[in-house]
């Protein structure tokens, strides 16, 4: 082992970012990676650790770099769950951070919420509890860790060339809504930015930070398309078209493209009509899917420091990978919206 060797801990190592980062760092000379996650993965040597508890013995050593990718990225969490997953986990992490440890904390480009800053402790200043909890986490890591880099990605999709993703979150909810016949229309600003980035574009930036000589000066790196990001009116149809192509290739009926509705028209006309006729389950699904709405109305670009180019075209391969991975969902039959009066199969 040379003097330049670095021991790197990746939290959230079985998640979307953690898996790809581990792949990127594998085989890099002088970098020795250990992964940990709540569930662990013995087949890949990932150590199980619930970060709200004390770290296990095998993780108690000197770390040169800790990349904190662990997070619960659901937009529908209640505040308590979001706090436990995205804030309290930093307590466990703190026990492993030594005087020379460079902490690379993965946040989100949307942690600045509605005000453009992470400083507000008020939930109302954020679009959801996820953003709110990630903002609070940023404030805490800034206070605690002397050697810090914060990385803020926009909406992460699968790998650029093949769509591979270890987990599906964020924009995949649109695909899920279409596949379950729950989204006939989307409240969206057609010219809003839909800032998606391939996961490997993000992990390339993180890997460069890990390998750099700098031990972290509190810099914030925002990895996003910024003004180069696609627009909703382009990205969503691309995603749904790719999914439909996948279905047609398998002899399945394609879904209709969800209509993009002005948010005002959606609230005034579509929703009241829909509410009147939907089944209980469709009501629930619509409520859940509304969590993505704010991300389809962002007319200001993400202020990117590390600009990801040509990301919109990657949504197609990501949609196909999603369908390949979850064929049971992707091959569901098209179900027309129907009245709540339609009788359901009763319990015995």
């Amino acid at each position: 082992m040379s003097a330049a060797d670095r021991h790197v801990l990746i939290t959230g190592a079985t998640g979307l970012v953690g898996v790809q980062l581990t792949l990127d760092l594998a085989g890099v000379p002088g970098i020795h990676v250990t992964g940990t996650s709540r569930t662990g993965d013995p087949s890949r040597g990932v150590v199980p650790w619930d970060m709200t508890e004390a770290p296990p013995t095998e993780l108690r050593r000197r770390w040169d770099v800790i990349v904190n990718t662990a997070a619960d990225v659901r937009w529908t969490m209640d505040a308590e769950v979001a706090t436990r997953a995205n804030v309290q986990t930093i307590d466990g992490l703190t026990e492993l951070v030594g005087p020379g440890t460079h902490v690379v904390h993965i946040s989100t480009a949307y942690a600045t919420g509605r005000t453009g800053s992470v400083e507000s402790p008020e939930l109302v200043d954020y679009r959801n509890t996820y953003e709110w909890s990630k903002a609070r986490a940023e404030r805490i890591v800034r206070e605690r860790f002397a050697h810090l880099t914060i990385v803020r990605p926009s909406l992460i999709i699968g790998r650029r060339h093949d769509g591979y993703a270890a987990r599906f979150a964020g924009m995949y909810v649109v695909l899920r809504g279409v596949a379950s016949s729950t989204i006939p229309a989307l409240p969206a600003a057609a010219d809003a930015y839909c800032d998606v980035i391939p996961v490997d574009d993000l992990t390339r930036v993180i890997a460069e930070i890990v390998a750099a000589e700098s031990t972290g000066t509190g810099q914030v790196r925002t990895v996003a398309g910024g003004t180069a990001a696609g627009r909703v009116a382009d990205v969503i149809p691309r995603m749904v078209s790719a999914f439909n192509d996948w279905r047609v290739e398998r002899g399945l009926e394609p879904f209709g493209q969800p209509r993009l509705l002005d948010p005002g028209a959606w609230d005034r006309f579509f929703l009241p009509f829909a509410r009147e006729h939907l089944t209980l389950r469709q009501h629930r699904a619509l409520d859940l899917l509304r969590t993505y709405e704010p991300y389809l109305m962002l007319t200001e670009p993400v202020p990117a420091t590390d600009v990801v180019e040509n990301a919109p075209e990657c949504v197609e391969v990501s949609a196909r990978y999603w369908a390949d991975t979850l064929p049971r969902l992707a091959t569901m039959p098209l179900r027309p919206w129907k009245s709540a009066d339609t009788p359901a199969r009763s319990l015995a």
Partner: protein
Amino acid sequence: MSDHPNATLTGGLTAADAARLDEVILSLCFLKPAEMTNGLDLIGDLGYDSLGMLELISAVEAEFDLGEVDETSALQVQTVGDLRRLLAETLG
């Protein structure tokens, strides 16, 4: 209804139906438990989210050709055992 030697282990389902149901459940989640038991929480233990729970119900309906199961009961499902019982009652 059940030919399983211990039907309580499968929520009243036949062993074959329980295996089909388990396959559906596992095909839609990323966390794979060592053993499928009634007590497993679909969100906490298997990684489903709220939307995923609705997708799971739809997938079960498609797999077992059920049309639509009772909505109120379906929305109360939290565990593997809840889903097994719902399916057993619906099939019964």
